[in-house]
């Protein structure tokens, strides 16, 4: 893992050095899939385990960035982003299940003695349609939910609770076998994607590469948004919504736009997560997952673009080490981490680094 290294390096760094470190991290990330293709006895070879783990964390980093767009910039704390992530994942999973089952029905449907595909599975054997679903399912849900929530001027903690309820409702719905998404077990036992074996090193490398690209694109998009007038309107909205309305801006449209964009980014991250991890089940929609995403953002530093990425990397890096070393204590540690950040690091790790810079 390269996160601890990056931390100490940026601590001593000015913005220029930070850019260098960022470039270096990107280079390492781009090199990893290539190194994973080396023969197993080569000392530079990156194992499939490491590649999958880092790929997974990168997907989480995209979620953190998407959440930061709505929370850090627009002040809307969503505790339901796991739902959008899972929806993207399920859409991808549908395609993978169809690939695995060929002309037959997916195995779990046969167990339920269903004889034909439900209508919403139609077309999922095509990759392009599955990709459309990856964008449309979270996007439309966010659009409808956001439209009504913002129209009714639901804000603050009420908004957070509603998003939490939404993801919980989603989880309960997907737990049911009758919903047609594999119930409790979700989707697993994938075989191939676009005709390539899903566990083949080449496929893994390409998926990893795609994840890095999505992260870079999301970062660029976030950066452009934050620098545009749109970004400033969001900040204004967060700080003084009334003032903004009396300036002649309609906050609803601005909120809706960034909300849907964020949901779609989460869906895309979920779609890349599923083939790398090899499973998607309703557990991804559990409220704790979404809360954990908020912890990443808070820990890294909200309202910045790098902060959430750092947060997602640090927390998940620690998690994968901790859950192996001291499996029982991980949740205590996570809780303690959140308390410490809330009490002593209101601006997150990024705030700490910036403070060091100023001294």
């Amino acid at each position, binding site marked *: 893992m390269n996160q601890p290294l990056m931390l100490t390096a940026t601590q001593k760094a000015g913005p220029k050095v930070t850019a260098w470190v960022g470039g270096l991290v990107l280079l390492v990330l781009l090199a990893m899939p290539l190194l994973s293709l080396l023969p197993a006895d080569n000392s530079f070879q990156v194992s499939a385990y490491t590649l999958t783990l880092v790929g997974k964390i990168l997907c989480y980093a995209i979620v953190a960035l998407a959440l930061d767009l709505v929370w850090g910039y627009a002040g809307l704390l969503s505790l339901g982003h796991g739902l959008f992530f899972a929806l993207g994942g399920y859409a991808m999973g549908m395609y993978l299940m169809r690939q695995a089952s060929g002309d037959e029905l997916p195995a779990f449907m046969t167990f339920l003695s269903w004889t034909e595909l439900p209508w919403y599975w139609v077309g999922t054997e095509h990759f392009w349609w599955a990709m459309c679903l990856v964008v449309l399912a979270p996007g439309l849900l966010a659009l409808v939910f956001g439209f009504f929530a913002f129209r009714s001027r639901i804000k603050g903690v009420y908004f957070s609770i509603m998003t939490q309820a939404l993801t919980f409702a989603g989880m309960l719905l997907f737990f049911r076998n009758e919903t047609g998404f594999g119930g409790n077990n979700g989707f697993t036992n994938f075989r191939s994607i676009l005709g390539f074996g899903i566990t083949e090193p080449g496929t893994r490398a390409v998926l990893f590469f795609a994840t890095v690209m999505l992260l870079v694109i999301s970062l660029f998009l976030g950066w452009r948004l934050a620098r*545009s007038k749109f970004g400033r309107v969001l*900040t*204004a909205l967060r*700080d003084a919504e009334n003032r*903004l309305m009396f300036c002649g*801006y*309609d906050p609803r449209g601005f909120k809706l736009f960034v909300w849907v964009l964020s949901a779609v980014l989460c869906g895309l991250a979920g779609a890349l997560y599923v083939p790398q991890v090899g499973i998607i089940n309703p557990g991804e929609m559990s409220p704790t997952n979404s809360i954990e995403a908020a912890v990443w953002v808070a820990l890294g530093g909200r309202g910045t673009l790098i902060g959430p990425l750092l947060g997602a990397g640090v927390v998940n890096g620690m998690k994968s080490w901790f859950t192996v070393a001291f499996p029982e204590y991980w949740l205590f540690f996570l809780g303690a981490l959140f308390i410490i950040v809330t009490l002593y690091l209101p601006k997150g790790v990024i705030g700490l680094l910036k403070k060091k810079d100023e001294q």
Partner: protein
Amino acid sequence: MRNVMLEPILDPNKDAGSSRDAISFGQRAEPGLNTRHGTILTLEGISVSFDGFKALNNLNLYIGVGELRCIIGPNGAGKTTMMDVITGKTRPSEGQAWFGETLDLRQMSEVQIAQAGIGRKFQKPTVFEALSVFENLELAQKTDKSVWASLRAKLTGEQKDRIGEVLDTIRLTHSAQRPAGLLSHGQKQFLEIGMLLMQDPQLLLLDEPVAGMTDAETEFTAELFKSLAGKHSLMVVEHDMGFVGAIADHVTVLHQGSVLAEGSLEQVQADERVIEVYLGR
């Protein structure tokens, strides 16, 4: 008892919509507000009640084009509620509210009212604290304020010049790049006034604009408002009688949700009922 209710100041030669070639950059600019009869704001028979308490009670008020009107009145007289009604924040249970001759304020949302040309300064200075002074003015600027326009917006030279002018006017040129949250209370007041100027509204509602200002700042604000009157219509709610005396040619006294007296400051100060209300005799 003498009746001090005056006719609104009428000036039919002045047409706010067409006579002012207001700097307008976007399609949201009003296509000439109809102020045929010289009245920019008409409130007639306005009543607002909160749980049976009548915050406004059959209120009648007319503001002429280019007029500078001061509203005074004891606490709870309904001054802020009246501003809420005008800006669409509160809906009246009865009565008529017109902007110009044709815009029915009761049917419009807060955003529509702001875009139609009514600007409001809050009692507590409200600026975008995380943004710089310059950015605060940029956001307030009269332009297309839709989502798509904001995504692509770039400042033109003209717009930058206009922001520079306003920065000069409110004397914050040297603080242009500072976060607005770091400004002093008085500076925030000026920034908010500056934001109103950027919006270029036809009617400005100012709720206690000189609260927390030093004497020098108050004096400067008085000058500023006097220079704005004529080009804009202003409605100022203020407790500072010295300030009111310095700017107003016309004063309205509110009491218990309706107009108690109207006229020049000397006239209303001499009014028995006003003295009674203020001194509680």
